[in-house]
């Protein structure tokens, strides 16, 4: 079972979206398309560092104007990979700082920015 990092609901390993909150709970590898758990550093399908597709954060984006498509299997451009890495870094930092919350408190901010205070 996989635990949703957003709401902590337990999900079957076959699920890509949480059964409880509808958010994405896997990270697709941009090299091979393998669905990794969301905190994976290295891909379970090809062993490459996970630089993955974010696709959508929740179900609402599935019905928006931008259609969600399955991850592209194969090499992405350097620009696409950089953008995906940025999105994944955001996701990891968000989870690390704010847990499953989507908004942060001033204490979260002090931790986030305080680390790098010169």
């Amino acid at each position: 079972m996989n635990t949703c990092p957003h709401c902590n609901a337990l999900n079957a390993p076959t699920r890509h979206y949480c059964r409880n909150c509808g958010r994405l709970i896997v990270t697709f590898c941009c090299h091979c398309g393998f669905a990794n758990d969301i905190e994976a550093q290295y891909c379970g399908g090809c062993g490459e560092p996970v630089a993955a597709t974010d696709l959508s954060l929740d179900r609402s984006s599935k019905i928006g104007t931008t259609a969600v498509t399955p991850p592209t299997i194969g090499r992405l451009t350097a620009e696409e990979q950089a953008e995906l890495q940025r999105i994944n870094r955001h996701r990891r930092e968000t989870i690390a700082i704010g847990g499953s919350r989507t908004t942060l408190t001033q204490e979260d901010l002090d931790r986030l920015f305080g680390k790098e205070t010169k």
Partner: protein
Amino acid sequence: MLPSETKVLIVDDSVHVRLLLRATLDKLGFPPVLQAADGEEGWQLFLTESPHLVFLDQIMPRMDGAEVLARIRSHGADTRVIVLSSVAGAEKIIHAKEMGADHYILKPFTREKVAEVLSQLGWEIQVEADS
């Protein structure tokens, strides 16, 4: 750095926030501050005045805080930028950090929090007691 030697720019479309922050900085020993009521005006003031410290709102007319921050960092200036906003969304905040914000204070803010953050960023802050 001494507050008295610091040129400060406040960029916020709320006159109440500007007034409150101005009074806060005055209490902390800063000289009169520069003020802008939107991002475009703030960016122009930044270019002409080269402030040491910018307090930057996120949501503003004409140019938002993220765009102003990006321009300041692209400009290469060593200006300290503190985002002061009611936007608490994790993605926006982390984006601001990645864009080079030095700190982020949520509204409503207190004088103590402003003083604490400025101290962390290297200003020699001495908080005066309210008279």
